C-alpha cells in the first residue's frame, strides 16, 4: 500500500486547492490592474471558471488511491472528495448568484470574488487536512474570508455589526480549538488525526485528552452553529448580504461537519461512549432551540438562521447510527441541506436584491403572483426545508433518522420529527405569505429580473434538490463510499 501512496505526486493531492489559490490571486491582481471604472464582472466569471476546474480536479482525485501527502498533513480519500465537490458546487452557485446581483458600481467588487474563492481554499483544505495545525490554518483561511464578506454592506449599520460579532466570537472559537490542539499534543505527543486514535489508550493523562477533546468540540460546534454555540448566527445572517449568506450558511458548515466527522470517527473513535451522548444532547438542543426561536421571527433571514441551527441538529442525529451508516447519512444530509439552503437564499437574493428591499416575511406577500417562477421556486425550497417527500430535504432527514433508529435511539427521530412539525409552522408562514394574493395597499416592488448567471445558479440548486429527492441513489452511494474511509477506525469501537 505504501508504494501506491508514493506513486501519486504530492501536488495532485492538493490540486483543487492550488487551482483555487491561483484563481484567487489572479482575480486580486487583475482587480488591481484594471481601471477603477471598468466592470469587474469578468472577474466573477474567472472565479466561476476556477471553481469549476477545482471541482473537476477533485473528481479526478477519486481515481487515485486514498492516501496522505506532504508528510501526512493532508489526505485525499472518497470522503474528502465528496466534500470538495460539495463545497466547490456551493461556491460556484454563490459566485454566479453574486455576478448578477452585486450592484455594478459597488467598490471592491473584484475583491469580493477573490474572497469567495479564497474562502473555498480554506474550506476545501479543511475537509482533507489530517494534521491539526493544518486544520487550524484551513479554518482560519475560510473564516477570515467569511468575516470580511459578512461585513460587505459597509454603509448599513447591520453589516459591520455582523462582521464584528462574527469575528470576535469566531476568534474565541478558534482560540478554543487551538487550545484543544495544544493539549492533545501534550497528551499524546502528536497532532496527526490518524495517529491520535492509537495513542489515546496509552496517553499520559486521560483527563487531558478529555479536556482537549471538549475544547476541539467547542471550536467545531461553533462553526456549525449548533446550540449552545449558535448565538452569532441570526445577527450575522441578518447583516450579511444575501448571496454571502447563501455561501456562509452552507459551505463553511459543510467543511466544519466534515472536520467533525473526521475528528470523532477518525481521531477519537475510542471515546464514542463520551461523545455520542454529547452529540445527541447538542442535536436535541439545536433542533429545539432553533425551531422555537425561529417561530417568533418576522425577519426572513433571521428565521432561516434559526432554522439552519435546527438543521444542524437534525444532521447531528445521524451520528447515532451504527458503523459507517451514520457518516453516510450525515454526509448526505450536508449535501441536501446545502442544496436547498443555497437555493432559498438565491431566491431571496433575486427577489429582495442586494440591498434587501424585502426583509420581513410579510414583504414576500404575493410573490408568486408577481413573479410566478421565483415564487414557485421559493415554495419548492421551503417545501424541501419542511421535509416533504420527493425533495432533498426529506431524504436528508429520512436517512439521518433511519440510521438513528437503527442505532437504537428511537426517541431521537421522534423528537426530531416532532420538531420538524414545529418547523413546518414557521416555514408555512412564509409559504402562505408567498402564495396569498398581494395586498392592495402594499408598495409595488419592481419585478425581479433573472439574468443568465443567476438563472444558472437557481437551476443548479433546484436540480440538485430535486435529484436528491427523487433519485438519491447515486449521491447516497458516494456518501457511503466516502464513509468507508473510516471503516477501519470505526471497527475499533467496542
Amino acid at each position, binding site marked *: 500500500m505504501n508504494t501506491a501512496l508514493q506513486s501519486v505526486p504530492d501536488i495532485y493531492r492538493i490540486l483543487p486547492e492550488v487551482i483555487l489559490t491561483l484563481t484567487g490571486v489572479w482575480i486580486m491582481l487583475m482587480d488591481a490592474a484594471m481601471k477603477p471604472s471598468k466592470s469587474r464582472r469578468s472577474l466573477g466569471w474567472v472565479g466561476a471558471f476556477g471553481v469549476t476546474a477545482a471541482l473537476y480536479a477533485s473528481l479526478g482525485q477519486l481515481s487515485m488511491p486514498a492516501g496522505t501527502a506532504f508528510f501526512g498533513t493532508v489526505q485525499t480519500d472518497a470522503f474528502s472528495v465528496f466534500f470538495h465537490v460539495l463545497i466547490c458546487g456551493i461556491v460556484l452557485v454563490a459566485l454566479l448568484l453574486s455576478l448578477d446581483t452585486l450592484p455594478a458600481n459597488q467598490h471592491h467588487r473584484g475583491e469580493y470574488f477573490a474572497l469567495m474563492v479564497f474562502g473555498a481554499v480554506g474550506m476545501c483544505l479543511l475537509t482533507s487536512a489530517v494534521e491539526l495545525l493544518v486544520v487550524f490554518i484551513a479554518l482560519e483561511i475560510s473564516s477570515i474570508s467569511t468575516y470580511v464578506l459578512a461585513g460587505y454592506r459597509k454603509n448599513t449599520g447591520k453589516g459591520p455589526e455582523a462582521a464584528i460579532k462574527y469575528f470576535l466570537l469566531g476568534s474565541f472559537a478558534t482560540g478554543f480549538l487551538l487550545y484543544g490542539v495544544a493539549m492533545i499534543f501534550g497528551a499524546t505527543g502528536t497532532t496527526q488525526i490518524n495517529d491520535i486514535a492509537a495513542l489515546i489508550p496509552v496517553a499520559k493523562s486521560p483527563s487531558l485528552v478529555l479536556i482537549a477533546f471538549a475544547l476541539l468540540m467547542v471550536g467545531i460546534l461553533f462553526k456549525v452553529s449548533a446550540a449552545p454555540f449558535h448565538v452569532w448566527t441570526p445577527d450575522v445572517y441578518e447583516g450579511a448580504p444575501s448571496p454571502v449568506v447563501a455561501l456562509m450558511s452552507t459551505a463553511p458548515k459543510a467543511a466544519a461537519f466534515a472536520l467533525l466527522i473526521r475528528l470523532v470517527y477518525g481521531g477519537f473513535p475510542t471515546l464514542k461512549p463520551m461523545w455520542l451522548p454529547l452529540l445527541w444532547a447538542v442535536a436535541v438542543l439545536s433542533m429545539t432551540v432553533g425551531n422555537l426561536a425561529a417561530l417568533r421571527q418576522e425577519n426572513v433571514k433571521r428565521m432561516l438562521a434559526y432554522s439552519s441551527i435546527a438543521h444542524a441538529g437534525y444532521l447531528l442525529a445521524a451520528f447515532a447510527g451504527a458503523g459507517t451508516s451514520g457518516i453516510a447519512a450525515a454526509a448526505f444530509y450536508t449535501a441536501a441541506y446545502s442544496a436547498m439552503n443555497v437555493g432559498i437564499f438565491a431566491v431571496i437574493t433575486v427577489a429582495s436584491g442586494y440591498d434587501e428591499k424585502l426583509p420581513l416575511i410579510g414583504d414576500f406577500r404575493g410573490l*408568486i*403572483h408577481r413573479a*410566478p417562477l421565483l415564487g*414557485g421556486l421559493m*415554495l419548492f425550497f421551503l*417545501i424541501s426545508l*419542511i421535509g*416533504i*417527500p*420527493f425533495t432533498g430535504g*426529506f431524504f436528508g432527514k*429520512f*436517512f439521518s*433518522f*433511519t440510521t438513528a*433508529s*437503527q442505532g437504537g435511539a*428511537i426517541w431521537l*427521530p*421522534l423528537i426530531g*420529527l*416532532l420538531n*420538524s*412539525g414545529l418547523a*413546518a*409552522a414557521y416555514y*408555512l*408562514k412564509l*409559504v*402562505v*405569505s408567498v*402564495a*396569498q*394574493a398581494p395586498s392592495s395597499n402594499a408598495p409595488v416592488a419592481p419585478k425581479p429580473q433573472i439574468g443568465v448567471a443567476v438563472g444558472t445558479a437557481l437551476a443548479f440548486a433546484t436540480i440538485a434538490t430535486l435529484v436528491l429527492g427523487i433519485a*438519491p*441513489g447515486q449521491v*447516497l452511494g458516494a456518501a*457511503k463510499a466516502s464513509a468507508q474511509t473510516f471503516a477501519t477506525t470505526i471497527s475499533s469501537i467496542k
Partner: protein
Amino acid sequence: MDSMNGIILSIILLAPLVGAAITLLLPEKGKLPAIVALITGLFTFVCTLHLPAHFNSGASGFQFVQDFTWISNPNIHYHLGVDGLSLWLVVLTGLLAPIGVLASWSSVKERSKVFYALFLVQQTAMLGVFVSLDLMLYYGFWELSLVPMAILIAMYGRNLTENSGPKAALRFFLYTFIPSAPLLVAILWLYAKTGSFDFATLQAAIGTHAFSTAALCWLAFAFLIAFAVKVPVLGLHGWLPDVFSEAPVAMAMVVAGKLGLYSLIRFHVGLFPVQARQAAPWMIALATIGILYGACLALVQKDFWKVLAYGTIASLSFCTLGIYGFTLAGLDGAVLQTINEGVIGAALFVLLGALYERFGTSTIANYGGLAKKTPALATLFVITGLALVGLPLFNGFVGEFLVLSSTFTGVSKGWAAAGTVGVILSAAYLLSLVQKIFYGPESQAVIAYPGKDLGFREQLVLWYLALIMLGIGICPNILLNGIESGVQQAAGYPTLSEQMKSNASSFVVIAQEISKGGK
C-alpha cells in the same frame, strides 16, 4: 389491452404529472390551462377505468402489481398494486379530477396555470396513496398530498375575513403534518426491526408476533392518530370547517374522507388487526357521537359551507363506524359509503359553489325562494340531498343500510340505534337547508338576481354525478363484489371477533344510556 396491466398504474400516476408539466410550459392564454387539465383529467379517468374492466374479483391479493427497487439501501421499492379495497377509490379519484376542473372552470380566473398544475400534482399524490404498497412510497405520497392543497387554499382562499384563507391553509397543514411525524417514526421503527417497508412483509412480520405487545400498541396508536386526523374523526376535526369555507371547490371536495378512511382500513386495521380491535370500542363510540354531533351542529349553522363541513363529519363517522365493527357487511358498507361520500360531496360542493359564485355569500339567511328563478339548480340540489340522507334507490341508502344493519347485528343495538337517529338528523339539516335556500319568501338578493340558472357545464357535471348516485344505488353489487374481496382479510380473525363482542358488550350499557339520553 391485457398487456397494459403491468404498467397501467404507472400511467395513472404519471399522466397528471405530465399534464401539470404541460400546463406550466404552455402560455397562460384564456382557458388553455383549464383545457389541458381537463384533457389530462379525462385521460386519467379513462385509464382508471381500465382497472375495474380487467380486475379479477375472484382472486385474492393485489393485482396490476409493479415492483422494482427505487433505492437499494434503505430498501425502498416502487411497489404498486390494487385490490378490491383501493380499486374503486382509484376510479373515484379519477372521476373527480375532470369534475374538479369543470367546477373551477369559471371561478379560477387569475394564475390559472399555477392552479391547474398544482391541482394535477394533487391528483398524482392522492392516486399514489391508494396504489402504493411500500410504506415509504405511501408516506411520500401521503405527505405530498398536503402541499398542493395547502398552497391552493392559501392562494385561492375565499378570504371571507382578513387572512382567513392563509390561516385555514396553515391549520390544515399543521393538523395533518404533525401527527404524521409519529407515523414516520413508527414506520422507521418497523424498518429498523425488519429491514423492509413492504406492506405484505410487514403484515406477515406483525402477524407472526415478532414484536412485543407494548411496541405494537404504540405503533398502532401512531398509525391511528395520523389517519384519524385526515378522516377526520371526531375530536380531530378542528381543521375541517375552516378548510371547507376557504378552499376552492375542486380542492375541498377531495380534502376529507377517502384518503384517511382508506389508510385506516389498509394500514391500521390491515397491519395491526389485534390493536385495531382493542381500539374499536373507542372508535365506535367516537364515530357514533360524531354522527350525532356533526348532524346536530349542521342543523344550527348559519353558513352553508359550515353545514356541509359538519354534515361531512357526520357522514364520515358512518364510515368509521362501519370499519371498526369488523363485520364484512360493515366494512363493505364503509368503503361504499366512502365512495358515496366522495360523489355526493363533490355534487354538493359544485352546487354550493354555483350559489356562491352567483351571490357571493355563504350566509343562508341571504337566500330564500330561489327555486322559482333557478329550477334546475333546485332540482339537482334536492336529488343530491336525497342521496345524502339515504333515500332508497340512491347510493347513500345502500352504504348507510349496510353499516347500520351490521352494527345492529354485529356490534351493538344501542350504537346502531344512535346511528339511526343520526340519519334522521341528517335528513333534518339537509331538508331545512333546501327549504331555507330554495323555498319560502324571496330574499333581497334573490329578488335582485337576474335569474340565470345553471349553465350547460354545471348541468352536465351534476346530472352525471346524479346518474352515478342512482347507478350505485340500483346495482351496488358492481362495486361491492370487488370491495368485498378487498376487505375480507380485514374482517377476518374470527377468534378475535368473539373477544370483540365481549368488549363491546360492556359498551352496550353506555350506548343505551346515550341513545336514551340523546332523545
